[in-house]
């Protein structure tokens, strides 16, 4: 029989406000196995933990139940407390009477009654707990960073600086990501390329970093410390080791009509191309969708002009297999499609553009060499209307955009407006906003300067319709403060499109078994306390794949993720999860059902000698669980017809005891 101690936490008034904690500790006092029951204001505090430690010693407790917040919050805390007092940490069970009781129920009687039942279920479970000892597994000291934007670059550099090898997988031909496409950055207005490209060069030169550009993650197996990853290196038809990046091929290629994705299709590139001058690796890539040679077998100009002999039309996709100890997702974002917002006429007029396109238009390396002109006729625009929140803050029921605030648009729009007025004072600039959100260091000051110093017209209201008429854009909008409907004749309309996670993130999350929210942003292990870890051990999050962020935030998070990775790789061994499956070999039928459902291949078969009642021995094959590989899902326990397979920590008897306690 266990000797169980029950500790009911008030959590200040969080629990005690809706649950009579004294009544709970009194009621649980009489449960089978309970020898001690108490309550305290903050069980997780030092004083609270001391109460637990003292009780363990004083009452010779063999198991404890803490009625408190979610185990996702403090289970680890109380396990450590128990361990410090000499109790096996897996003899601790948490009754979640905060998130799943006091916070969601209305009054004291119902809250108290439910808390008692939850407590009873936890006591019933602990009565059947057994001490568990986690296994150990080695750590592969190499990290994988998926995505080569500023987030991936920063994470990789920090990990490499700490002395661990890192691989970056980037699906585009170059690293750099969205930041490489930007012109200036808010609120300091320093040039994006000037601060990004040195970092890209650092990456290229760092001996600990390998870049797999034009590559994608194909398959992920294994678990924390021991991931097995297959990377598909797509054929770029250029030998990376030989290509010098001289760029002659990209000038001679006769296929000139390929929309240039780096400039968002606002100009053309060749079929063989280097995305931009500072690309890393600076290697040419052939676009197989457009290359005449690859499509028809006739051309070969690039091969002829390449003095290095780097062109290889027969190149095939290559699969690289590598082991990693940690994986960082840094897959970034994209502006959403404007197809569902054609009241702004994005698909009807070339002069309605997104902010990222505006960014390219003002960039010295962009399609207009930095001159702000209308894409339709190359003329200078005299009236520009910026529309904020296009697709952001949409209700789910409207089924068009995103429910969240994209966070960066207010600031970059202020930047665009300010820079326009600075460079072209003859231009009228209107910004239509719902709210201007500027919570950041020097952000509001920046926005105010746009209004006060640069004379940008900020109008509270929304644009309802943009009508292209002749070479003008008729903008119909509301001015809520003046209570007027406005009609502005504009030359250029710039839409602050909502941002969304890159489309590659969802399949990647599935491969990583990392969870995502309904918007396809990766979810954190804890929204406040573990913001750079995914709930899946060994998988970390960097940058906008976790939520909208500006550059400084992205870089901070990237470094934070790197710190977590370094902490993991610095260990030689990892303690595993002791809640793994175990087979009772006497009962095993060898039917192989468990083996068939195991997602990890953790089940093998061994020959076992059994002593029979007549003292003879018989060799029988039985299932055996590899504890280092088993992740403890429990699929096998249900597949097993004889009940030979059970799960430690979530044993059949334990769960049934909980069911019984709840239904009692």
């Amino acid at each position, binding site marked *: 029989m266990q000797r169980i101690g029950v500790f009911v936490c008030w959590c200040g008034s969080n629990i005690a406000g809706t649950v009579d904690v004294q009544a709970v500790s009194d009621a649980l006092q009489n449960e089978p196995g309970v020898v001690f029951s108490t309550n305290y204001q903050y069980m997780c505090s030092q004083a609270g933990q001391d109460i637990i430690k003292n009780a363990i010693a004083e009452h010779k407790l063999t198991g404890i139940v803490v009625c408190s917040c979610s185990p996702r919050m403090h289970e680890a805390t109380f396990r450590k407390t128990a361990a410090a007092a000499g109790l096996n940490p897996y003899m601790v069970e948490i009754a979640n009477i905060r998130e799943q009781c006091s916070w969601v129920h209305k009054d004291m009687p119902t809250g108290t009654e439910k808390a008692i039942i939850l407590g009873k279920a936890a006591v019933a479970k602990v009565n059947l707990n057994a001490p568990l000892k986690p296994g150990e597994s080695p750590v592969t000291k190499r990290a994988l960073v998926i995505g080569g934007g500023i987030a991936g670059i920063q994470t990789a550099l920090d990990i490499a600086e700490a002395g661990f090898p890192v691989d970056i997988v980037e699906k585009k031909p170059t690293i750099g990501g969205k930041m490489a496409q930007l012109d200036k950055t808010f609120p300091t207005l320093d040039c994006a390329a000037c601060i990004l490209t040195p970092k890209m060069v650092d990456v290229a030169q760092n001996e600990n970093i390998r870049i797999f550009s034009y590559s994608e993650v194909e398959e992920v197996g294994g678990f924390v410390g021991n991931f097995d990853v297959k990377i598909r290196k797509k054929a770029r038809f250029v030998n990376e080791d030989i290509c010098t990046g001289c760029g002659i091929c990209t000038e001679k290629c006769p296929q000139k009509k390929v929309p240039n994705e780096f400039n968002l299709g606002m100009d053309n590139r060749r079929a063989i191309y280097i995305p931009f001058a500072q690309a890393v690796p600076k290697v040419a890539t052939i676009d197989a969708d457009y290359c005449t040679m690859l499509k028809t077998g006739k051309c070969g100009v690039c091969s002829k002009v390449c003095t290095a002999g780097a062109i290889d039309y027969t190149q095939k996709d290559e699969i690289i297999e590598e082991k990693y100890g940690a994986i960082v997702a840094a897959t970034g974002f994209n502006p959403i499609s404007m*197809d569902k917002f*054609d009241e702004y*006429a994005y*698909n*009807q007029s070339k002069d309605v553009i997104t902010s990222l396109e505006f960014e390219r238009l003002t960039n010295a390396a962009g399609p207009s060499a930095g001159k702000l002109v209308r894409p339709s006729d190359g003329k200078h625009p005299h009236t520009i209307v910026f529309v904020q929140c296009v697709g952001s803050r949409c209700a789910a029921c409207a089924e068009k955009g995103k429910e969240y605030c994209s966070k960066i648009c207010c600031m970059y729009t202020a930047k665009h407006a300010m820079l326009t007025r600075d460079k072209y004072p003859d231009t009228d600039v209107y910004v239509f906003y719902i709210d201007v959100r500027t919570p950041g260091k020097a952000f509001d000051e920046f926005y105010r300067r746009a209004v006060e110093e640069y004379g940008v017209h900020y109008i509270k209201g929304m644009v309802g*319709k943009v*009508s292209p*008429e*002749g070479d003008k854009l008729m903008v119909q909008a509301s001015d809520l403060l003046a209570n007027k409907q406005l009609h502005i004749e504009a030359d250029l309309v710039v839409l602050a499109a909502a941002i969304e996670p890159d489309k590659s993130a969802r399949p990647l999350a599935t491969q990583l078994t990392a969870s995502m929210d309904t918007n396809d942003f990766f979810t954190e292990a804890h929204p406040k306390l573990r913001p750079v870890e995914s709930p899946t051990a060994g998988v970390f999050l960097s940058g906008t794949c976790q939520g909208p962020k500006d550059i400084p935030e992205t870089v901070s998070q990237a470094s934070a993720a790197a710190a977590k990775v370094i902490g993991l790789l610095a260990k030689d061994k990892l303690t595993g999860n002791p809640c793994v499956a175990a087979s009772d070999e006497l009962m095993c039928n060898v039917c192989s059902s468990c083996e068939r459902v195991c997602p990890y291949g953790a089940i093998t078969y061994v020959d076992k000698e059994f002593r029979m009642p007549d003292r003879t021995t018989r060799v029988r094959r039985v299932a055996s669980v590899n504890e280092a590989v088993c992740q403890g899902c429990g699929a096998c326990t249900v597949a097993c017809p004889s009940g030979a397979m059970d799960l430690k920590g979530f044993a059949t008897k334990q769960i049934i005891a909980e069911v019984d306690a709840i239904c009692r």
Partner: protein
Amino acid sequence: MKVSYFPGCTLKTKAKQLDKYTRKSAEVLDITLEEIENWQCCGGVFTTARDEIATKLSSVRALSEAAKKDQILVSVCSACHNVIKQTNNAMQTDDEFNFRVNQYIDEEYNGEAKVMHFLELLRDEVGFDKVAEKVKKSLEGKKVAAYYGCLLLRPSSVMQMDDPENPTIIEDLISALGGEPVVYPYRNECCGGYIALENPESAKARSNKVTESAVKSGAEIIVTACPLCKYNLEKNGSEIPVVYFTELLAEALGVKEEN
């Protein structure tokens, strides 16, 4: 192909042309229009209030009739189509409305019928390519502006005919008939509708915007599917002719009587 046909009251009176050319074109395109027996006026507008039951019963009866015959319910008047489609949607999605409507009708109806505008029928069931094959007298050189108005497109979550802000269905039909579609920004803005009755000035302002925009974009003729749109645009002094799309269709198919 046999479909149920709901002409609507205006098509029996002021908009006989719309009805006549629809029927003639349908014949050429092997569509049999079976007019719903004893159909009643749809009411012209869909009252959005959820507790308006009686005004929607005539639509439900027509829908139920079509569902019984397992036929698509086709109308050609934008208003009828809008009312019937919205009513059908309410029958499918609003349980309370559905329950109350079913108290009034003999046989239970739960939104089973498929509702299509004649344009959708041409696009999705016949195919514009098939329509193009039957063209006898191409509209070549004719610059035609499609006027959608409100009722064909909105609310798009219910109507689901086309992109509500940048539709192409009529333009595609015009192209199929050999004409040159003119795209202009006001083709999906309101003509003023029934406001013409009590505030003609408001209707005039709306309609003028539409016709001016079409003319500015180089249109020679405007086509519409709605008798009220046609009335408003014409009444308020459109510089260019406004005709039903079916008239151009019949012309191209060679079944328009010269008079």
